[in-house]
């Protein structure tokens, strides 16, 4: 497999709701993780319909302003979503996790910036890039973030 996640392998089935994550009890071996379990990040079901595939990311940088995502925002990816034309995605580019817009030009996938101050053209071809997950929504803080973060 070229990456964690190849476009042609993606499922297009409708989303299915799954019970929210919680500690599981093992019938066989006691889990060594038992002493370290914490509640997962709490997201309402209408925002995150598929908890096992939902992961949150900190965003650093301003190259995706055009998508409404700014430095220090939080982007929530749903790995069960199929990336399509103009999806905002977390992708692995040159060994770094980065936030990009996926566009198809003449059927070829490209990862682009989305910021009018930056070059509009595609910055990377999808040769070495791997899509990690599709961003379902993002979160902005409108007061000092330190006041909210626990």
């Amino acid at each position, binding site marked *: 497999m070229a990456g964690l996640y190849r476009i042609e392998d993606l499922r297009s089935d409708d989303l299915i709701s*799954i019970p929210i*994550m919680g500690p599981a009890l093992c019938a066989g071996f006691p*889990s*060594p*993780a038992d002493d370290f*379990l*914490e509640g997962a990040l709490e997201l309402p079901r209408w925002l995150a319909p598929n908890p096992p595939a939902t992961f949150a990311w900190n965003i650093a940088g301003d190259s995706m302003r055009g998508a409404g*995502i700014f430095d220090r925002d939080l982007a929530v990816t749903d790995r069960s979503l199929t990336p399509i034309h103009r999806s905002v995605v*977390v992708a692995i580019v040159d060994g770094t*996790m980065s936030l990009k817009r996926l566009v198809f030009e003449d059927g070829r996938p490209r990862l682009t910036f989305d910021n009018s101050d930056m070059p509009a053209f595609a910055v990377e071809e999808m040769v070495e890039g791997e899509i990690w997950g599709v961003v379902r929504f993002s979160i902005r803080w409108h007061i000092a973030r330190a006041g909210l973060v626990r």
Partner: protein
Amino acid sequence: MSRAIALIDGNSFYCSCERVFDPKLARVPVIVLSNNDGCAIARTSEAKALGIRMGEPWFKIRDLCKQQGVRVFSSNYTLYGDMSARTNAVYRDFAPRVEIYSIDESFLDLSDVQPARRLELARDLRATVRAWTGIPTCIGIGPTKTLAKLANHIAKKVPDLDGVCDLTDPVAYDHWLCRISVEEVWGIGRASLGKLEAMGVDTVADLRDLDPRPVRKAMTVVGERIIHELRGLSCLPLELMPAQRKGCAVTRSFSARVTEREVLEQAVATHATRLGEKLRRGGLCTTHVSVFYHTSTHDHGAPMRSVSTTVTLPEATNDTLALIAAARHGIARTWRDQGERPWRYSKAGVITTDLKLLDDSPRALIGQLDRERSGPLMAAMDACNARFGRGSVVPARAGLQAKRTWSTKFEMRSPRYTTQIRELPTAVA
């Protein structure tokens, strides 16, 4: 329809969890160390190829890892536990009955799936788990748990199978059983292996074809059961509900030796706190708490001491504060002041062996504990710790986490990427 059980497990599970969030770990050797960074407990194929063995002590491989650029991690059980819950949620989408066997292995009942469709379903499950959670898996299918486990082993070892092996298929069953060594069978230990060798048993098929009765004499009822299971006769049902615990223990080695009473009391109070959480999660309670602490047999020439004492509670409880009081009482009556050559304690723990369901336990007439007050307090404490992270609210007796010098070491732990808002992974925009 014939019975079919699948065993699905994560490949190098702990290492795979680390790889999901750090692309720089792809294709390089990665290992994860046990508690207190003692020894290697998970290795990627690249690390295995360097000759790093399972359970190898960290101090023995430290130099090799540095030379070869092996990426080394302390266990991040918060992350592994969360990723395990995610994979199991996906399994439950594919099979209604799932037995979580260990943190990275689950049995699935596929009996309702038509035989011809089982491989397809397993491939779909594997791809979905990989896509949704990033965890690579292997799946073995068989008419019994023992054969499912064997099929899983084959799926792992034979790359052409693409991670799935179905031994409910008679052709595959006949093909593989005479090609796999008997030592790969689940439950065959070193002792049995010697006996089987003497009987001329070499492959799994040889074992299957033995007469079960003489085997029972040589290898007890367990050996006989294995033969039936290899023949496709199920002796081990799926355990959908974990059995009620009879006992519970919280024991830890200190990361540095402990000589002071206050520190020992703090450690034991911390263990009692954890014990209370475990009991409450199972709706259980206890009337006895045993406390032990001892020096290390590795400290040659140092004074040795090993203490164990049992404290009886006025009535069955799972109240952390009552458990802490009992544990401290155990220390108070066994502690001896340090002299010229102090005892340097290496490990302590609290143990219960008489667990009952709280709802069934009788109330004491005299010395009754205040359940009506303690229940909501404990529930609030558990809720805070689940929501704000483990150790957010602790009894003062257990001491502040940041100031503990004795607690388990995890010096090379990765961030808790999925459960802590401050430790989320970062994507560059």
